[in-house]
């Protein structure tokens, strides 16, 4: 079975660890994990993952800036924002900037896998 290739971007190593653990033994494979936006854009250009899970609040280049740069490389890139911030302003900004979906932290494994499976229906 071909797995969905996922890139995760979060300044928190804990969140990268949790997501990798949640996706283990699933139809998703984490092919890249980056802790800052600039590196994430470079890695995206090399790997062209099917789905990018992108943190919003990061030091240096923010999630929204990173999103813009990824979409400049590939306007069809499937980028999902994953953030603890769930304000209407933040969600609106992300979606109007080209993110395909928004997931608020924290989340359980089951909820996360369900969310990822829903994404594959539209990705």
């Amino acid at each position: 079975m071909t797995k969905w290739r996922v890139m995760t971007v979060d300044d928190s190593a804990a969140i990268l660890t949790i997501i990798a653990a949640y996706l283990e033994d699933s139809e998703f494979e984490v092919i890249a994990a980056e802790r800052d936006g600039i590196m994430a854009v470079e890695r995206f250009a090399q790997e062209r993952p099917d789905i990018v899970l992108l943190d919003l609040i990061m030091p240096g280049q923010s999630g929204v800036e990173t999103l813009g740069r990824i979409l400049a490389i590939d306007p069809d890139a499937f980028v999902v924002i994953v953030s603890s911030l769930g304000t209407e302003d933040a969600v609106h900004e992300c979606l109007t900037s080209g993110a395909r979906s928004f997931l608020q932290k924290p989340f359980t494994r089951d909820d996360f896998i369900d969310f990822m499976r829903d994404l594959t229906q539209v990705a």
Partner: protein
Amino acid sequence: MGSMFFGQYLLSKGAINREALIEAIELQRKTNLSLVELAVRDGCLEPQRAEGILTRYRTTDAGLEELCLEYGQIDREKLDELRRNQQSDWVRIGVALVASGHLTRDQVVEHLAAFHEVQHEANQQLEADFRACNDPETVRTVVELAVFHLKRFTNGPVKLQNLTEDGGVLSSGRRRYAQKLLGDRELCIALDLPSQVATVAAQGFIGIPVEDDSEVAIDAVCECVNIIGGHACTRLEASGFRLRPEPPFSTEGDEPAGELRSSIRARVMAGDHEVDVRVFV
């Protein structure tokens, strides 16, 4: 004297010593079962499903009863039966102290009456402290969210004791995990934690063992603060505040003391450790 657990009150009054309290708590740990543990014991919940419910409880805002109904395939009738059994078998700290021979029943009754009076006053004082704060709505939102999430992450008893205003200096033996929230106003939230509490919270959050003060543990607690900060921004948006969190950080120094006008210090008991939740406004 702020809000506290009964065992802590007895300790402060010299009615028992620390060893007696630890012995009683151990007895409670062995005897008192959570709803999920009771359901597993009664064979109406598979251990694997129970683990899933507990993970969900630690990482979402849902209550344990609600989760048992939704994911445990337990109906309301069974749940009510489990709850009744839990309440009838539950050993409170006073009963545990009597059972272990450290206090008589009459002594417990007498101390409990005095404790309730003290608690009533402490709760009233706590309300007055919240109202007297600079920016009370923000302080209350942050402190309540911090207590709520600390309880989830540490999977143990957490109790807000009192609120004071001070210079925001970090107490020795603790590390500060903080996050600035910027927008209509500037504030910073912080958890000042001893390493034992930080480690337990980090493990509860990631779900794997971590070493004290390791990079992973520090990072995980920063993410816990990030969740508190993010949820505070979300909750305060309903009151018309537009706030956005900065990346969380950890320090052994006093940052951001001095940068902002005042620091509200909420003293919180997490198990038998004292921790501080701070709001710099």
